[in-house]
């Protein structure tokens, strides 16, 4: 029934963002006057579905601000205090956000990467060994990125050419990389004495912490990569229908290898961010990052089965999580409540998406 309605009211020219509003008003709902129809028509079109999902997440964020304004009006109702509080939230979100962006590509392609937290720890301890630190900041950055990428490449090869299930291959990597990180660090915290690294977490640029800027740059680049390049197109195609992609001549395996390498690279970047924040490298960094990243990506509307998902959704998913954490902190609530709330949010977000909160907007009144 709803299918039928959709077919009838969808704009016939196929370019929902451009077509003539007059036409659409005629097909969409003849009974109503003309005003605002291009927006409404677009909202009913399938093309707007990701945007509708993201608007839902923005609504959740607004609700969280509302709760903040109610519980801590002294912070949330003062512009400058709110700004500095939100910078804290963004900083909190930045490293997990970068990991979640890599995870978005993996999940869109129909895979999963359980090893991200462990790869982060491995890259973190590898780039902070005393000998590496002696070469300076540039070398440390280089080592972290290479370690993450190579570990991701290994995952990719095992999955694409070793034909292992992504769950199994990255589960093995998760255990092994964490162990290797402990071996390298001798389970001790490796204090960072290189100023170039610690500056990442302490310096600001144009009033924004570098960590936030890195997160934003990674997000923008990833958006372009996913939506505007052949690689992004291949990633979505193999997740949408791997067999169809293969029979259309897309090299599925090569694309898979690159995707997992990309996830590893994101772990390397996040490792530097965490290391800078903690002022140290440790095999305990990135603990449970895999679960948080997966949760954020799923909340962001990416289908766990692959084929569909957005970078913006994942970023919003991370922000929702961080904002909840922040609300608990500013209200001095215990961490256990925070975990419970996060679990509830995951369930609620997925349920809401399944029941299509957007369909309320689409239903002709």
């Amino acid at each position, binding site marked *: 029934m709803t*299918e039928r309605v*959709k*077919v009838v009211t*969808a*704009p*016939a*020219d*196929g*370019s*929902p963002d451009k077509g003539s509003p007059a036409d659409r008003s005629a097909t969409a709902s003849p009974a109503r006057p003309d005003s605002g129809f291009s927006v409404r028509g677009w909202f009913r079109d*399938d*093309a707007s579905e990701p945007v509708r999902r993201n608007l839902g997440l923005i609504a959740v964020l607004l609700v969280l601000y509302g709760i903040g304004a109610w519980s801590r009006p002294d912070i949330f109702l003062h512009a400058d205090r709110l700004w500095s509080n939100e910078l804290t939230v963004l900083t909190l979100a930045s490293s997990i956000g970068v990991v979640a962006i890599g995870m978005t590509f993996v999940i869109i392609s129909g895979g999963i990467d359980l090893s991200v937290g462990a790869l982060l720890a491995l890259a973190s301890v590898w780039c902070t060994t005393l000998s590496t630190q002696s070469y300076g900041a540039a070398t440390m950055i280089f080592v972290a990125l290479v370690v993450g990428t190579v570990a991701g490449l290994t995952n990719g090869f095992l999955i694409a050419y070793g034909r292992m299930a992504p769950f199994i291959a990255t589960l093995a990597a998760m255990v092994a990389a964490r162990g290797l990180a402990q071996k390298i660090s001798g389970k001790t915290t490796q204090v960072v004495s290189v100023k170039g690294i610690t500056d990442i977490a302490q310096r600001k640029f144009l009033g924004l912490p570098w960590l936030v800027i890195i997160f934003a740059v990674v997000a923008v680049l990833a958006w372009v990569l996913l939506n*505007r*390049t*052949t*690689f*992004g*197109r291949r990633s*979505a*195609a193999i997740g*949408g*229908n791997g*067999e*169809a*992609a*293969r*029979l*259309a*001549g*897309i*090299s599925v395996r090569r694309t898979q290898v690159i995707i997992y390498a990309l996830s590893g690279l994101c772990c390397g970047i996040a490792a530097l961010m965490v290391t800078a924040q903690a002022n140290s490298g440790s095999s305990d960094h990135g603990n449970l990052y895999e679960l948080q990243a997966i949760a954020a990506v799923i909340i962001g509307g990416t289908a766990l089965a692959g*084929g*569909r998902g957005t970078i913006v959704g994942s970023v919003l998913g991370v922000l929702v999580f961080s904002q909840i954490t922040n609300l608990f902190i500013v209200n001095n609530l215990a961490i256990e409540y925070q975990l419970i709330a996060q679990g509830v949010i995951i369930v609620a977000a997925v349920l809401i998406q399944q029941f299509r909160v957007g369909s309320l907007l689409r239903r002709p009144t």
Partner: protein
Amino acid sequence: MTEAGMTEAGMTEAGVTAGGEPLLRLTGIVKTFPGVRALDGVELEVLAGEVHCLLGQNGAGKSTLIKVLAGVHRPDSGSLLWHGEEVSFSGPQAATKAGIATIYQELDLVDDLTVAENIFLGHEQAAAGFVRRGRMRAEATAVLRRLGHGDIPVNRKVGRLPAAAKQIVSMGRALSHDAQLLVMDEPSAVLAHDEVANLFRVIRELTSRGIAVVYISHRLEEIREIGDRVTVLKDGRTSAVNLPARTTRTDDLVTRMTGRSIEYVFPERAGRPEGESAERTDANPSPALLEVVGLTRPGEFADVSLSVRAGEIVGIAGLVGSGRSELLETIYGARKPHSGEVRLDGRRLAPGRVSSAVRAGLGLAPEERKSQALILEDRIYRNVTLATFARYASAGFTRAAAERAAAAEIADRLALHPRAVGRPVKTLSGGNQQKVVLGRWLLDPSTSTPSQAGRSGKSTGTRLLLLDEPTRGVDVGARADLYRVIRRMAENGMGVLMVSSEVPEVLGLADRVIVMREGRVVREAPAGELDEETVLDLVMAGSLLEVDSP
């Protein structure tokens, strides 16, 4: 309705040989799906203890009829009398409970469970929720012994059994339900010759105890050997009921299956009337575009050689399981051949590499449109450009506008409906989805990006198209459309190699026909020299030659 159906069935009574109340009687069964009338007044009468054969071409409605018997589909109208009482099955469980067991072609056994567990799947012997494994094993052994196969180990995982034994296990499951009617869909398709003999022994054993069997097969000699009576389906109707299986002449049976009333509207062959194509090819042998030499994949097809010229449509006729789809996929590089080679324009294609085949100019419209060809959730234009988006891109950046424009042009050329290429492909009908798949190979990115065309110096479009069942699941009206599209592709110089189970389709569309049976080419001839009955006969194991006399 029921009354009318009964009187109609009355006229079939003349053909009934055995007396007594029939076990099962179907009258006036109608089942429609969107756009298709799959069953259009089907009659069927099965007596206890007989083997009743169902005969009919692909698309005649056999599968739908089986599913009605199995309780999977509910008929729109018509009556189903079981033991003389009108019944309506609410689902497969209800049919099983009533005593009708169905053994599908792709056996629905669970490979990772043991033989005993499979036999009692869904009705495990249990006490207080605990499975009584010992008792199940003992009863499974007893069931298999009744089938003459006490030798099948009941503790073995079914996945490790050969095909013939799996079939016996399926029958064992039916027996464990106390089935009175066993429906078998092409049980011999996966069996070797001696295994078929054994299957027949088991069937005779069952019928001697009063169990009825509805047996579906394309092999006429089998029907003669095991069958008692035959019902023939054609275009969703019964064209003959209760013919004696042993004495009805083969040509009589074939005639009743052919001469379909469904309109196949084939486009005119431009400047090439019937029969002339043969002369033309003899007089003017243009070089082959595609050459396949001695291609072999053990167990699928052996030593297949064929060629396709530019502008020519070559049709492969053959049953499911004759190796035709596997052959197409191997030519395309989606499977690796054991031996033999594929050449396009004399250049050898890398075996087992789809991407290089596509680069060389091959395209495939696979058999399973939804699972093999389309990303259903994605937009139409992105599905059209799935194989070519990289060639529209510049420096790795996709150009959505160029893709949209190219797809819109294809949509116009193919009369895609609706033409809005930004919509998800899942909202299209089957015929229009198939147009999207065909359209994918009509794109020629070189014409829209002059820089690239200039660089490579020649067209990057598809030159040879492989079509696997191009009209499967497409309704009658849309078929004519697709035929026109395919013919026009050939007229524009593309070579087409197509596979179809529907003989009229192959004969009507192709210039040259290749008949495959059991993985081998058994006949190759211009389409004008063949007729439906000859091809059908070749496809169904040369029965005219072997059993012509009654």
